Every structure is written in structure tokens, then in C-alpha cells.
């Protein structure tokens, strides 16, 4: 299924065509077609184990593709923010070290230079965590951890940000802050691709949404994509979609029983 995108005479930054990936013998991605254009803000939703992380890794080039092709524009710098659970939080590094290590070209003695220290400070300030530079990465809250890795991705001045579940494990307020941060970065001209489990809090606010389960099941605006039919195909469970202030609100089966109390 090919998605219809705004006609744009510029070729896409990333073009996945007929992509399949496997771990050993088990197929994880199957026949994926996905184009990401410059200045787009795209979210991928799908159940756990549906292959979202695998797709992102294939796009950044750390997961081999079994069939098909992924074309990335030459000279494209990708800033990748991994799923926060996959980070080794016990690794002995400070926030500053995490960010600076991405700049691998150094003088012969690998000390952090004053310019680098200033650059790190600028990025951290922009993300609102300037005071944590010297802390060990384990001494941070979930939202701060998330932002440290966002800062690392920003540090190399990427053309596109690829984020794997940037709001996993943070509270409502932090989720809001991260969403606004990403929206600001997008407004400044950055292309953003992310995955999320948060249909109402995050996905519904994005301009373009992709429903994914091993392959692409729907691709379009949240209004087009967030329908009970598509969601049932994606999650394999019945889901109801309401409308609230012009926004779709997804109610999963487990929550239907409590509907009377809330809104």
C-alpha cells in the first residue's frame, strides 16, 4: 500500500521500498513502503513487537534489510534517539560525555575542549536541562534522560530526527513538554520521525500518522487514520474512536467499561 503524500517535487529524504527484515528465520518487517519528505513530522504507531524499532533501525542503517531498498538522500545527517529502555544506564558516563562522544574527530589528546563544552551547554539549555551536564546518566529523571539523548542527537545538527518512543515512561506534563519541544524543532525546519504508544497524548497531535504492524496498514492525517477499522487491524483488538473538540480520541477495549465516569 503506497501512501499518498503532498505532492512535492523534491525527492524524499528517506524512501523505503518493498522493505523486509528478518531476525534469524522469523520475518519482522514485511513489504514496507514509506517515504519521509523534508520538513515532515511523522509518527508511527503499532502494538509492542510490531517492528517499529526494527523499522527505525533499518532506516538509520543498523539493521540489515533482507529484501527491498531504503534510499537515504546523500549527505543526510540523521539524529537518532534510541528507545530509552535499551540504554545501559549503569555505564560510567556523565551527560556531557554522552553528548560529546559523538564528535569523534579530536586532537590527539581527547579532552573536552572549551568550545565543545559551550556547544553542549547551548544544546542542553535549548532543551531546558542545562544544569545536569556533570551528572551521571543514572541520576536523572525519565524526562531528563529522554532529553539527554535528544540533546545528543541535536548536537551533530541533523537534518532529520528519528526518535524511538520519546514519551515512554514520562508523566503527562513531561510528555507535553517533549511534544512542544519537538513541535518547536519541527517549526524551525527539522524533519521528525518518531514512534509512540501514546495514541491520544501524542499521535493524535501529529500532522501525519502511520499505523504499523509488520507492514504499513494506514498512512495519513490522524483523522483519516484513527478509525476503529484501522485500529482493529493494527492492534488486533476492538477499539472505539470518539471525537472531542475536533480531535479523534481512541478508547481501547479495557477502558470502555469506565467511559461513563470521565468525559
Amino acid at each position, binding site marked *: 500500500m503506497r501512501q499518498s503524500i503532498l505532492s512535492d517535487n523534491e525527492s524524499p529524504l528517506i524512501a523505503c521500498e518493498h522493505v523486509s527484515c528478518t*531476525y*534469524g528465520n522469523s520475518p519482522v518487517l514485511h513489504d514496507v513502503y514509506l517515504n519521509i519528505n523534508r520538513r515532515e513530522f511523522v509518527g508511527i504507531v503499532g502494538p509492542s513487537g510490531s517492528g517499529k524499532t526494527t523499522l527505525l*533501525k533499518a532506516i*538509520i*542503517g*543498523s539493521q540489515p534489510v533482507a529484501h527491498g531498498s531504503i534510499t537515504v538522500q546523500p549527505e543526510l545527517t*540523521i539524529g*537518532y534517539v*534510541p528507545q530509552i529502555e535499551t*540504554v*545501559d544506564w549503569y*555505564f*560510567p*558516563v*556523565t551527560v556531557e*560525555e*554522552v553528548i*560529546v*562522544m*559523538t*564528535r*569523534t574527530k*579530536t586532537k*590527539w*589528546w*581527547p579532552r573536552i575542549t572549551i568550545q565543545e563544552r559551550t556547544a553542549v551547554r547551548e544544546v542542553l539549555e535549548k532543551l531546558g536541562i542545562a544544569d545536569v551536564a556533570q551528572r*551521571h546518566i*543514572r541520576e536523572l529523571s525519565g524526562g531528563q534522560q529522554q532529553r539527554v539523548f535528544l540533546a545528543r542527537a541535536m548536537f*551533530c545538527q541533523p537534518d532529520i530526527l528519528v526518535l524511538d518512543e520519546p514519551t515512554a515512561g514520562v508523566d503527562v506534563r513531561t510528555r507535553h513538554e517533549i511534544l512542544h519541544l519537538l513541535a518547536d524543532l519541527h517549526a524551525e525546519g527539522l524533519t521528525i520521525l518518531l514512534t509512540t504508544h501514546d495514541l491520544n497524548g501524542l499521535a493524535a497531535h501529529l500532522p501525519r500518522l502511520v499505523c504499523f504492524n509488520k507492514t504499513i496498514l494506514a498512512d495519513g492525517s490522524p483523522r483519516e487514520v484513527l478509525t476503529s477499522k484501522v485500529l482493529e487491524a493494527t492492534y488486533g483488538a476492538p477499539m472505539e474512536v470518539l471525537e472531542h473538540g475536533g480531535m479523534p480520541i481512541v478508547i481501547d477495549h479495557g477502558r470502555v467499561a469506565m467511559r461513563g465516569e470521565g468525559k
Partner: protein
Amino acid sequence: MILALDIFEPYGFQFFRNGLVVATIAGALCGLLGVFVILRGMSYIGHGLSHAVFGGAAASAVMKVNYFLGAGIWGIVSGLLIARVARRRVIGADAAIGVVTTASFALGLALMNRYGQASKSIEAVLFGSVLGVKVVDIYAVASVALLGLAVVVLGYRKLLFSTFDRDVAQVSNVRVSLVEAVLLAMISLTILVTMRVIGTLLISALLVIPAASARMTTNSFSRMLWISPIIGAVTCFVGMNLSYHLDTSASATIILLDAFVFVVVYAIAGTRNRAKMSSLGHL
């Protein structure tokens, strides 16, 4: 006065002075590389490679080939084989190491049984010995130590990046497999030049324990790179002296001392953490 003389008594022997220099440099070198060994979960590779090199050492003793040449080539081939087999994800690195290195070790043992006259030097490789240390060993271990230092300083950020976050390092144009190959080669070289003093069976401990102790003293990678070689060097130096006076095996004494340092650091770190925790709890 008598005590002081006693302390310096072993320094009258050439073999002891040579052994002491080799052991101290070896301790620093193993401590330095050990940081990567423990942070990358490679301790089993160190263990495996030392056993693989033993096969090469035995073969070169039997065939009367130069030890460094014979065991060196053997070690490199085993390292490459491990990397090759481990790339097949179905088998897994630990099983790959198990297959390659135990086979190599068994071959060494078989050679030792079949050609008994060489068993003397094979035993020295197995358990380590200060007696056989020559000036050439000092040169060998010193060159590898300088090389290791150069690799760590010049490749610092690439090493750190690919150790901390392999995937992202790879997509940030760090040649991760090259970094890993260089590390593996350095570990092989280290085992090669230190094995005759420390011995096959205990060398992997020297790659792990000082770094593990260092890890518990600090949360900073760069500081760990200083502390671990210092612990390694000091314990090797003191252990060598102790072993002379206690009439125990040098490598056993060194490793016991390292284990002792580890236990002390572990206990101190534990109390400090508990203190931190309980002070947080009262807030």
C-alpha cells in the same frame, strides 16, 4: 634494618627484577584494557583467548618455534575465528568462544602429553613463572603497553562511543567493527606478552578484577581509565614482592591481592551507597 634488607633481598636477583618490571607493566596494561573488557561484557573473550593462546604456546614449544611468533599467530587466528563464528547470531558469541578456545586448549594439552619433554615450558605457560622472564619479555610487554596507550588515547571517543552505544556509533560513521577488531587484537597481544609471567589460567582475572574495582570507585569513564591501570600495576608490584617472601606462586598472589582490593572497594562502595540511600530516605 634486618627487615629492610629482607624487603630488598629479591632485588638482588636479575630474574626477579625482570619479572617485577614485566608484571607491573602487565598489570597496568591489563587494567587499561580491562575497562573495555568489563564494560563490553567481554570477560569471557579474555578467558577464551588466553586458553586459545595456550594451544599456540604448546605447539610452538613442541615445534621449537619462537614463542611470540607461534603463539601470536595462533592467537590472531583464534580471535578471527571467534569473530567469524560469533557473527552467526544463531550460535552466539559465548558458544563460539567455547568451541574455538577449548579446542585449542585441548590441542595444547594433547601436545603436552604426547611430547613430554616440552612439558616444562608448557607448565610455565599454564601457571606463569617469574624464573623464565628475559629482557626480551620486558621489551615485548613495554611495546604492547605503549601501543595500548596510543590506541586508547587516539581512539578515545570512538572506543567510548562504540562501547556505550554500538548502533548509534555505527550510524555516526564510527567504524565499529574496526574498533572491535583493534580491541580484540590488543587483548590478544596483551595476553601473549604477559602470559609467561601470569599464566594462562589467571590472566583473564587480571583483565577483569582491577577494572571491576575501578568501576565501583567512580561513575566517570575517563577516571576509570586512570584508576584501573593504577590498581593493576600496584597489585602486580606488591603481589610479586609478597610472593617472593611468602614463597607462593606470583600469579596466584597477584590475583588474590586483586580480589582483596575488590572486596574492600565493594564493601566501601556498599556502605557509601547505603548511607546515600538512607539520607535520601529521611528527606
